[in-house]
């Protein structure tokens, strides 16, 4: 299988890029893929904390691109999955410590050993963003159902297209079905209408994400987590399986729930 470099980006901060990277990376590793997650948020690294691997960091991405160490020395092997690795960002430097050219070389080097290279992009559209997308084949855009997030996602998709990444996929994060039904929140159709790119998944708002993030255990490891389930679906869809989007998980009405049970039984 040809390896793929996917950048996870959003423009707006706090919509769940890092959470998505961590969960998607873990979910792909659960499917037996060899995955490396690259944290490119130099100066504000988080992915290591979310993965619970912070205390293993010795070398970081800046050390690698500057040739202070070999890639293998800087890669942190996940404690749960053999095929999952993390290349952490540097915390004491800034975005200018890496150039897009260096990032491209780095991702090409990683292609030799991994099926998936997930690049966690920093918020914003400056140098950090340019670095993160420079080695990518495709982009995954994360947006929450808010006007501001969708606006920024739209801007990002435009920038991605200008950079030659025209096959971006969308993940809608933190959707609250009850609010959508009441008409208080943008629904999936509204968002797709504006962004007009392929939908890769819908992740419901879920308190287990907060718990798992704080504990350093991605939610996909938790069978009862609805968000984790959504991310597992995204991973399978990335691998080419036909999986329904299934946004209607939070069904409050009995008929819907019954229908769902029937569907499951089939």
């Amino acid at each position, binding site marked *: 299988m040809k390896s793929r470099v996917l950048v996870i980006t959003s423009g707006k901060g706090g919509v769940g890029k890092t959470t998505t990277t961590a969960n998607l990376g873990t979910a792909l590793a659960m499917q037996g893929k060899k995955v490396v997650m690259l944290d490119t948020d130099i*100066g504000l690294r988080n992915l290591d904390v979310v993965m619970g691997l912070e*205390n293993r960091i010795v070398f970081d991405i800046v050390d690698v691109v*500057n040739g202070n160490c070999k890639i293998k020395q800087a890669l942190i092997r996940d404690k749960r999955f053999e095929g999952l690795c993390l290349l952490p960002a540097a915390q*004491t430097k800034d975005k200018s*410590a890496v150039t897009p050219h260096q990032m491209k070389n780095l991702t090409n080097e990683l292609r030799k050993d991994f099926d998936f290279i997930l690049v966690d992009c920093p918020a914003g559209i400056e140098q950090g963003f340019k670095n993160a997308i420079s080695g990518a084949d495709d982009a995954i855009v994360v947006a929450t159902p808010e006007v501001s997030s969708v606006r920024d996602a739209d801007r990002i998709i435009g920038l991605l297209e200008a950079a030659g990444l025209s096959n971006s996929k969308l993940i809608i994060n933190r959707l609250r079905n009850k609010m959508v039904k009441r008409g208080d929140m943008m629904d999936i159709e509204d968002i797709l209408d504006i962004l007009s790119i392929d939908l890769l998944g819908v992740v419901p708002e879920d308190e287990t994400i907060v718990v798992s993030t704080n504990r350093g255990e991605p939610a996909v490891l938790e069978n009862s987590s609805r968000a984790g389930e959504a991310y597992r679906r995204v991973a399978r869809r990335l691998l080419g399986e036909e999986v329904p989007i299934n946004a209607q998980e939070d069904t409050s009405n009995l008929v819907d729930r019954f229908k769902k049970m029937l569907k499951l039984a089939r």
Partner: protein
Amino acid sequence: MSVEIMAAGVDTELVIDLTAWDSFADMKAELEKNLHAIDNYLMGSFISIDVGSKSISERQLREMEDILLDHGFHFKDLINNHSAQGQNRISINKNNAEILDSADTVLICRNLRSGQKIFNKGNMVILGDVNPGAEVIAGGNILVMGALRGLAHAGALGDEKAIIAAFRLSPTQLRIANHITRPPDGESIVVNNPELAKIRAGKVVIEKLKI
């Protein structure tokens, strides 16, 4: 603001321009003001001071160095285009800096936050906390009069006898000389006593700090 970043990159060089001020008192005030304005994440970096054509005595230079250290920065160089006399001072000062770096203990009176990194060739005493993501690196010993939750590297130049002590020792990672350790996975043990880490029989061990 007269703080210049000379060469953006890995080794960012900071230069504080004090050429516009005449009296030493003004220069000091301006230096303080500049240091306050510098982003926190640059803390621990080396700073050069440009005094233009003014002559600076050795004592005054020391004073400015102390101001830098108080703010968590290191003195790098004095830029002084005051002909031969000035150059002479630079060389004197370089020697001072080296002696200070090799033998002296540096006192940092502040909390170190994520992304801040401090290096000293000698010992390091921190009156405050070291938060996760912050790095304290010393050629000698490290004493944290507060909680050490970040990374500490003692004996960074190879001294295996170096120790790390803290009132609350719960680091993300401890390094002594070329040994690297991290706390075990799973439940963290909360110890409310001062503790000390050192190398014994080739391993980093943590014990109660007996005073």
